[in-house]
């Protein structure tokens, strides 16, 4: 009997335990009810959802101390640990999840391209389908506001800064020689093929303390972490050929890519204004190896390219023109490891190395430059919570530069310098709420060449004003050492400095983006010299200064008209500086006051084609007319260019691509070259500086061979 009783009791105890009711009310921070939140006791099956008024109520047999969990999309999960019997009449307000897509972002000054970036202005494809860009990522960025049109140069000129003021980083590591060498009337291109990158951030000011030695801008390129599959890419173009192959294994992958470009046939067909003795020729190879570890990723990237050309260019001072010959070899290596130390700590370590050798023959001068540079970086990130993160690191840049110069009068003169910089930074990201965030950092550098310290505070703040709009502010000071062209002649100088003040407004709604940004930049300590060109016997100083102020507008829309995606950029820039050999503060000759860029892409489904156009307009650039008293007070006529492209998908893996730059054949003038001495009438004669060719045509056929039969090289074009 006793036994039966105990069994009965035992079984009953499992089934007939006391029930308690858990009940409460869930709201957001503003007190509005949250409907449909999941409410439950952790580890049990007991729970329910909140109703239309945010109320929940459910019964449980669990007893004692339990954990109540309330979760809802885009809100931080709430937990309460308490006695079950006390879990009634609960009033709970959930905090917004600050990582959600509609949360505020610290966006002042930067444009991103990528899938998962919240402030993505460009899509990965845009870099390569923008008509004027010809597959060069720098070309695509030049359609964004804040850049100026310096068509003959091809590099990035940002907000009144010259091209040297923009630094480029691959996976956080500096690229010392990012551009292919070129002659002065043919735009350069980025050395690295766009298909290696899946994320691009282009900051036109106010950037993070992690980046230094850039007065105006940084361009951050991230390489692909993991390719999808084995494939072979074949490209045949009117200017050369490319061949690429990717192999993927369980944990690692290897991509190799080779290309050969020779402009000789093209120039034979369409002669340009240069007299080419040896048209541009480049042989390039790249390899990327990636390996995944349990808690990290190792990437090794190396690229080698060799280019050469030889030509005679028109010159007002020399009837026979000026002879120019160039031979460049460039090796770049970039290796990095990114790993998770535990749930909250991340470590990054990396090294980049550049070896560049350039031999130039200019008239009778022989110039032989050798640059060896490296950048080492160690970075630690700590995530205290989704609302507070700390990023800190230390890095070292070293440049060893040597130039051998000789001509008929000078036999082998050598100019050399070492430019080593130790940098460190610490920066915190703080989210006060989903609507308000702050990034505050500081960067310290020791500049060995000047035996000097530089301290740069950086600050940015963002506040969300509505569900689709926000404004942000950014402030920072930036310093940069003089360029190799100056340091090779004079080392007794100081860092150049600038301060940025930025105000940004952004509206972003399903497929439509509007951005307006106004800024002021204050330049100080710029390099000046007292001769026509920076030369070995010039007097150098840091007495230059200047300012830049402007407004940038950007509008992108891919929803209003089906299959049409377009963007419009407008920049107004007011800038003057006194630097180099300027007698007074003036608007430099690489500046346009007004820049407009319109890019459109239209997908024609019936033709399986994407048709694109890109139109650029810029007001005239300044030049000095020695027949008048002024300095940089004359202006060229405005710049106009309309480029068109057509990508036709013959089959999913075969693409035919046509493009023409400056389709309407505008005769653009970039400036004027005046004679050194006046003619018989006392007038200085001049020659218009025109691009080598007004137009450029391109035809290519791209074929991808992969198992899936659907990948193609659309993203490489």
């Amino acid at each position, binding site marked *: 009997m006793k036994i039966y009783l105990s*069994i009965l009791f035992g079984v009953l105890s499992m089934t007939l335990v006391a029930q308690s009711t858990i009940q409460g009310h869930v709201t957001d921070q503003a007190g509005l009810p949250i409907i449909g939140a999941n409410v*439950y006791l952790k580890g049990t099956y007991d729970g329910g959802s909140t109703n239309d008024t945010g109320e929940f109520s459910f019964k449980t047999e669990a007893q004692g101390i339990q954990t109540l969990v309330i979760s809802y999309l885009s809100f931080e999960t709430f937990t309460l640990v308490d006695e079950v019997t006390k879990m009634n009449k609960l009033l709970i307000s959930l905090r917004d999840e600050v990582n959600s897509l509609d949360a505020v972002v610290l966006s002042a000054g930067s444009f991103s391209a990528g899938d998962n970036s919240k402030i993505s202005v460009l899509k990965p494809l845009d870099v390569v389908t923008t008509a004027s860009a010809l597959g060069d990522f720098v070309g695509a960025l030049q359609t964004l506001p804040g850049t100026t049109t310096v068509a003959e140069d091809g590099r990035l000129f940002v907000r009144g800064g010259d091209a040297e003021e923009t630094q480029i980083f691959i996976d956080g590591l500096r690229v010392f020689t990012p551009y292919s060498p070129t002659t002065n009337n043919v735009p350069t291109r980025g050395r690295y093929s766009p298909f290696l990158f899946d994320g691009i951030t282009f900051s036109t000011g106010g950037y993070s303390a992690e980046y230094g030695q850039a007065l105006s801008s940084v361009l951050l390129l991230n390489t692909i972490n993991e390719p999808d599959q084995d494939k072979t890419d074949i490209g045949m173009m009117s200017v050369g050929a490319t061949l690429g192959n990717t192999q993927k294994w369980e944990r690692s992958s290897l991509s190799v890519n080779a290309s050969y470009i020779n402009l000789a046939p093209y120039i034979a067909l369409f002669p340009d204004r240069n007299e080419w003795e040896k048209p541009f020729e480049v042989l390039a190879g790249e390899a990327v190896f990636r390996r995944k570890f349990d808690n990290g990723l190792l990437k090794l990237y190396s690229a080698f390219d060799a280019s050469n050309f030889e030509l005679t260019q028109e010159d007002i001072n020399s009837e026979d023109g000026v002879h120019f010959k160039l031979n460049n070899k460039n090796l770049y290596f970039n290796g990095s490891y990114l790993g998770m130390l535990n749930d909250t700590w991340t470590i990054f370590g990396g090294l980049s190395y550049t070896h560049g050798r350039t031999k130039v023959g200019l008239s009778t001068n022989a110039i032989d430059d050798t640059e060896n540079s490296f950048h080492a970086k160690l970075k630690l990130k700590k995530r205290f919570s989704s609302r507070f993160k700390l990023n800190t690191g230390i890095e070292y840049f070293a440049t060893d530069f040597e130039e051998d110069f000789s001509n008929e009068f000078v036999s082998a003169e050598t100019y050399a310098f070492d430019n080593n910089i130790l940098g460190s930074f610490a920066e915190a990201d703080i989210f006060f709420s989903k609507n308000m965030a702050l990034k505050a950092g500081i960067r310290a550098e020791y500049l060995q060449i000047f035996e000097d310290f530089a301290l740069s505070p950086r600050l940015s703040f963002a506040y969300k004003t509505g569900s689709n709009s926000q404004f942000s502010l950014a402030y920072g000071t930036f310093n940069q050492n003089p360029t190799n062209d100056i340091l090779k002649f004079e080392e007794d100088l100081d860092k150049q400095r600038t301060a940025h003040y930025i105000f940004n407004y952004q509206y972003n709604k399903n497929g439509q983006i509007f951005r307006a940004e106004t800024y002021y930049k204050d330049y100080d300590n710029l390099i000046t010299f007292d001769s026509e060109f920076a030369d070995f016997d010039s007097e150098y100083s840091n007495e230059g200064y200047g300012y830049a102020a402007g407004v940038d507008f950007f509008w992108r829309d891919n929803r209003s008209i089906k299959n049409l995606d377009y963007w419009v950029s407008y920049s107004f820039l007011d800038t003057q500086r006194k630097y180099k050999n300027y007698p007074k503060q003036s608007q430099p000759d690489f500046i346009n006051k007004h820049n407009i860029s319109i890019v459109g892409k239209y997908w024609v489904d019936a033709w399986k084609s994407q048709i694109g156009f890109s139109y650029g307009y810029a007001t005239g650039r300044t030049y000095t007319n020695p027949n008048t008293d002024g300095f940089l007070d004359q202006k060229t006529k405005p710049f106009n260019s309309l480029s068109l492209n057509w990508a036709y998908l013959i089959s999913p893996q075969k693409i035919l691509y046509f493009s023409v730059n400056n389709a309407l054949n505008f005769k653009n003038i970039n400036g004027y070259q005046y004679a050194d001495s006046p003619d018989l009438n006392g007038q200085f004669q001049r020659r218009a500086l025109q691009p080598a060719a007004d137009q450029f045509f391109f035809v290519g056929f791209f074929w991808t061979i992969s198992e899936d039969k659907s990948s193609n090289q659309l993203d490489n074009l």
Partner: protein
Amino acid sequence: MQKIAIIIAIFVSGLLNAQGNYENGMMKAFELWQANNMSEAGHLFERIAEAEEGNWLPKYYAAHVSILSSFGETDESKLSARLEKAQNLLNDAMTYSPENPEIMVLQALLYTAWISYDGAKYGMTLSGKVYATYAKAQTMAPTNPRVVLAKAEWEMGSASYFGQDTKPFCKDVERSLDLFANFKPESEFHPKWGKERAEQILSNCN
């Protein structure tokens, strides 16, 4: 002896009770799903997943519900919140059950949800991943009907986009139907969905 019997009896009844909870919970969740009450079903799967640590099935179904409900969502912030949640659930499921072709199918489906939201933005980067995921699943489980069906459906989608013939994939769908007919799930709650979808697709083939 008797005492031991009592202890065993109590222990077993407790165990049965817990087992019953899991079964009842899963059954209830599937009922909610059948009744098209997706969010409640998803919530219940999540609760079960929390209670049954180490079991990939509730995570799998919670992710499945989240992915399905994201198709057709036009608000990007809602879409990304749902898909990120689904991705986290799938990541957990994959740690509990690595190299599982059933989970791979869902992973590919999740990528497809991104692509169907904005092909220009996600198509280029994710379509290769979708294919690679299906290809891997197929080498691991060539006779799994869901792998065969999902892969065929994806290939039909790409073919019709490029104006190519979708017929060659119809026989894969037919094959999946044969496989569905002979498919024995490991347990009552292991994935067994997809037959209706295959029939539906096949009806468009003729």
